[in-house]
Every structure is written in structure tokens, then in C-alpha cells.
């Protein structure tokens, strides 16, 4: 039985890492062995679990949660060392500037290697292969890069007819196209550009890439704190210059914006976003992460 694969995608800074971490916690609480794959190099994921920075091999983050970081350069080395079998040849190849310039510039090389690595965790193959995870969550990368990543198998499968790369590309294509196993979660915030990008990405994911996309996650939604009557009273009393009134007006406007953007998502995608509230603490606590996990898992991991 192969693992499920979940991509958490969104613009930089919208809270992808937090959502990925919350999903992992939720899955672990349901007894699933979960691996989070970090594609950024900012150490946020380990920080959320209070663990040391992630490395190239999976390490424990919490009960039933492991984390790993994929680093393109290391993937290139590992892949060609495996492909060439002779370490001396591999070393020579990897030391050549030609080779490095080519792999850095050629479209799809790092994307392919990231996916190839994922495949090893999702569906290990070979005689001694052992399934270590039930769920693999990919944290990021930012939307543009993520779309390029998900498009790679199709491009490669059509470009490369045979050989190990063509075979892997076709395995990846089958995995990404399997709605029972691979899903994408788009994370966004109630902000004009972020919503626009989410809608564009959604259209490409569904139409062009043909992968299953879950309900979007709308993060940092201000709670509805003031009723319409409160707002009227606020205006009627007219003490407009004070900090309390200013803060209230800010909150009312932020809430209105959030509702407007939630409506845009709903109308455009025909589905209600999963709403995560704006959290009013200095740092995200474990109980808050668990609360987010409960909200997300009910709908996204069912």
C-alpha cells in the first residue's frame, strides 16, 4: 500500500509551513505515519516543532511525524552517483563545470530530482523496499515553482521515450494523476494579489496539470467581532479619533475584506474555503497548532 502525497502550495509568507505542520500533527493524531518535506531553506518547520534544523535524511519531529529537507544540489549528486554506479566517474562528472552549468540552467532537472526523491518515500520500489510513511506532505515551494514542479513529469515523459528517466517520469505522471493518492492544497490569505494568484494556480492545476485540488485554505481571517449595530453605534457616537475606535474600524474593515475574498473564492471555485482564523498571540503555541490541525483535518484528510 503506497502512501498518500499532499502538496501544500501558496505565495511566500501566507502560512504554508504552518498549514503543513498542522496537517502533519492532525494526521499523526489519527495514527498516520507522516513525513513533511521542506523545500525552503529557512528552518521554520523545525522551529514550529521545536526541533533542530532538518537535514537530507528524515528525522523525528514529533510522535509519528518526521521531517526532511530536499536540497537540489545534493539531489543532483546523489542521483548521478546512483546512475553511474562508479563513484570515480560520478565524482569526475560532478566536479565538471560544464555539468554543473547545465544542470543549473536546464529546465526541469532539479524539479525531476525532487519528485524522484518524493517517489522513493511515497512508493519505495525494489526488493528490500519498506513503506515507512502513510502520508507525505510537501511544504511548498512558492506557487510558480510548485507549478513548474508538477508540470515536469508530463514534459519529461513526452520528451524522453525510454531509459531510467523516461520510466521514472511515467511513474511520477501516474502518481500525480491518481486522485486517490495525490492531492494539492492551496493556501492563501484574504489579500487581493494572493487571491488572484490562488485562482490562477487553481485553474492551471485542474486544467493543465490535471491533479486533484482540495478546498483552498484561507488563512489569517479576522473574526467577526462587531455586529452591524456595533458599527452603526461606533459611527453615531462619533468619537472617531481615539485609538479604540481606530482599532475597531481596522478590525471591521479587515473582517469585511476577508468575507469579500472568501466570497470570491467560493464563487470562482464553487467550494467553500477552509478558514483559519487570525491568531492573536506573539508566537504560535502547540494548542493553537492543534486547533488548526482539527479544522484542517476534518475536511482535508478525511
Amino acid at each position, binding site marked *: 500500500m503506497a502512501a498518500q502525497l499532499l502538496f501544500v502550495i501558496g505565495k511566500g*509568507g501566507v502560512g504554508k509551513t504552518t498549514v503543513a505542520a498542522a496537517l502533519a500533527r492532525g494526521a499523526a493524531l489519527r495514527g498516520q505515519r507522516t513525513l513533511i518535506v521542506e523545500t525552503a531553506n*529557512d528552518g521554520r518547520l523545525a522551529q514550529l516543532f521545536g526541533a533542530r534544523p532538518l537535514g537530507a535524511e528524515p528525522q523525528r519531529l514529533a510522535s509519528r511525524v518526521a521531517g526532511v529537507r530536499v536540497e537540489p544540489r545534493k539531489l543532483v549528486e546523489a542521483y548521478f552517483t546512483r*546512475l553511474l554506479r562508479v563513484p570515480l566517474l560520478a565524482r569526475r*562528472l560532478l566536479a*565538471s563545470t*560544464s*555539468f554543473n552549468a547545465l544542470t543549473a540552467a536546464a529546465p526541469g532537472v532539479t524539479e525531476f530530482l525532487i519528485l524522484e526523491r518524493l517517489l522513493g518515500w511515497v512508493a519505495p520500489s525494489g526488493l528490500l523496499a519498506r513503506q515507512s510513511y502513510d502520508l507525505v506532505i510537501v511544504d511548498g515551494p512558492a506557487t510558480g515553482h510548485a507549478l513548474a514542479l508538477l508540470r515536469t513529469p508530463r514534459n519529461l515523459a513526452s520528451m524522453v521515450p525510454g531509459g531510467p528517466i523516461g520510466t521514472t517520469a511515467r511513474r511520477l505522471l501516474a502518481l500525480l494523476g491518481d486522485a486517490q493518492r495525490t492531492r494539492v492544497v492551496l493556501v492563501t490569505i484574504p489579500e487581493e494579489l494572493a487571491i488572484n494568484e490562488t485562482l490562477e494556480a487553481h485553474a492551471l492545476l485542474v486544467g493543465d496539470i490535471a491533479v486533484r485540488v482540495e478546498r483552498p485554505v484561507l488563512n489569517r481571517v479576522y473574526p467577526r467581532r462587531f455586529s452591524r449595530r456595533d458599527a452603526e453605534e461606533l459611527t453615531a457616537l462619533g468619537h472617531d479619533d481615539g485609538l*479604540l475606535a481606530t482599532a475597531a474600524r481596522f478590525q471591521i474593515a479587515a473582517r469585511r*475584506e476577508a468575507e469579500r475574498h472568501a466570497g470570491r473564492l467560493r464563487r470562482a471555485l464553487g467550494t467553500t474555503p477552509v478558514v483559519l482564523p487570525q491568531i492573536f498571540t506573539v*508566537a504560535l503555541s502547540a494548542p493553537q497548532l492543534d486547533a488548526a490541525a482539527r479544522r484542517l483535518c476534518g475536511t482535508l484528510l478525511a
Partner: protein
Amino acid sequence: MAKRDDTAKARTSLLHKRLLVCVGTGGVGKTTVAASVAVAAALHQRRSAVITFDPARRLKDALGLTRLSTEPQPVPLDGGARLDAMALDTKRTFDEVVRRFAPSREVAERILLNRLYQQLSDELGGSAEYMAMEKLHELAHHRRYQLLVVDTPPSAHARDLLAAPTRLGELLATRAVALLKSPAALLGTSNSSIGRVALRTLLKALERWTGLTLLEDLSGFVSGFETMIAGFQTRAAEVAALLRAPSTAFVLVTTPEPDAVATVIELHRELRETGFPVAGVVANRVLAFPRLETLAVEEGQWPVPLRRKLLANYADLHTLSRRDRRTLGELHEATGLPLLAAVPMLTEAPISLAALRRFAAFIAPGLDEAATAAVGAAV
């Protein structure tokens, strides 16, 4: 306070640079910051241009333009301020570069029609970044402007942007490409048998990567491009020097969200390692609700049930303000960079030239004190 003096100094010197590069992840308001810095500089009587990658209609509207394209468009500012805006189109710029620098029109056409070129000019790793650098080179050499403000593509990796000027030239000049053009040539020059085996294996690996039909395209592409390599390398070296010049400054743009700040710390590390001059940080969408001291007066104005809600709401926003201050403090600690400006969170995006000017006033105070006060009150 020494810190405040540093900030003032950094801000003033910012507008007297010749080139400002705004970097940061997507969605932090980088384009708005780039546009408003350019507006501020123009209002300071510096002939300026802003180059953006964001073809968003909103920016076009904010600048009061009817169109935004690769051609410079004058922004309607008063008082003789001169500002041009242009948006970068990677594919078009790449085509222009080919037309301008190819040795003959035939070679240019051959490259432009090549299937591989058509794919690569869009998808080649870092081609957007590379074309930004080409455009920059062109504009810097024109000397039409005293200040160029560049909004960078939404890339989290400085490495992509900064390696771009050298990467393409490097790639085209390498033996790997020569090998694709004529594999036998390289096998002949290698003098050890191990080397020969390695090269043959490399070739095989490359064939697997590309597929054989593509190899043919590549060969055509390379023989066309070859004639332009020297030019690429010269310009790449010049851009690299320009980016490190004392008249250049990088500005990091971020929001105070922990996710965004973590990314920007990483970005700064990459910039510093590559030796690029970072002037400081512009923090956007910062909450600044101070601790309530003289509450009694204000509190008494409100009826009890509403008062309770107002206080609870204020306490929450004050907590977020504290978080923002703390995160920005961590950013300062990690990078040692001055905070050039903390632009407050506005409930409406700056979608008019007037709003952009108010935004600019946070980055260049003294530009428009009244505007600063107005925006301050709106928060």
C-alpha cells in the same frame, strides 16, 4: 538614539543611489515599495525609472498610466518630477537581445525560430532574472535616468537572480555544450581513458535527459548562440560590477509575518555571501497599536457592552503589534540591517497615485509630512 540616526542616514542615502534593487518573496508588497520609492525619488527631483515584473493592472492604475509595457511610460507627477515606468516581458526582452546582438539578421532569425530557443527563452532556469539584468545593463548605459528602481521577479532565492548574468554565458561556453554540438571533438581531446569513459557516460546521460530529437535542436541553437557568447559574458561582467558598485543598494522588502521574515533572513545571507550591498529593510503591513496608557478618558466615551468589545479588540491588535515589533527585532538582530521604514497595515491597497505618495512618505519622510500624518491617522 544612534539607531534612529542610522536609519535616517540610510534613508537619505537611498534616494541618492543610482540603482535600487528591491528583493523579497512574493506577496509582501515589493512592487508597491519599488514604485513608491521611485515616486519619492522623482519628487526629490531625481530623474527616475521603475522597472517591474508585475504586469498587475493595479500598479498601472496606481501610477495613473493607461498602459504599462517594455517601453518607458511617463508617470503624471506634478512639479516637474520625472518618472518613467516600464514592465518587463522576459520573452520579448530575450528576443530583443538576440536581435540586437546577433552578428547578422539571418543568425537572429535562425535563433528566434529554433524550437529549443522558444522553449528555453521562457523556461530556462532564471531567464526572467537574466533578462532583468540585460534590461538593467541597457538602461544603466543609456544614462537617461539618475536613479533606476528595479522590482525583482518573485523569487525567494537571491542566488537565482544574481547568478543569472553569468549562468547563461557560462553554460554556452562550456564543454558540455560543445560536446552536444559535436560529441567526437571532446572524446578526442581527453587524454585519459577514464576521462573518455566519463565523457561518454556523460553524453549518454545527457541524451537520456534530452531525448535525441532535442539534441538536434540544441545543436542548432548552440551554433547560433555561439556567436553571441562573448557579448553575453562582457555584459554579465559589467552587470555584476554594477550590482556591487557603491552607487547601488539592495532593499529587502518583507511583512512582519514570521514566515516572511524567516525567508528574508535567508535571502540576506545569500546576498551578503555574494557581496551585494544591502541598504536595509522596508517592512510592509506593520501593525502599530501602542499600549493604552490614558485609557480612562477614551473608555468612558463608550456604552458598556460596546466598550468591552472595543477593549478586547484593542488588546488583540496590541498583541499583534507586539509580535510585529518582536519579529522585526529578530530580523534586525539576525541581519544587523537598519529598518528603513515600517509601513503600517492599510486596510486598502495603494491604488492611486495619491495613495502611492502617502506610501512613499513612510520611506522618505519629509517628502510630504502632511501625507504621513494622514496615513498615520487612518490606521
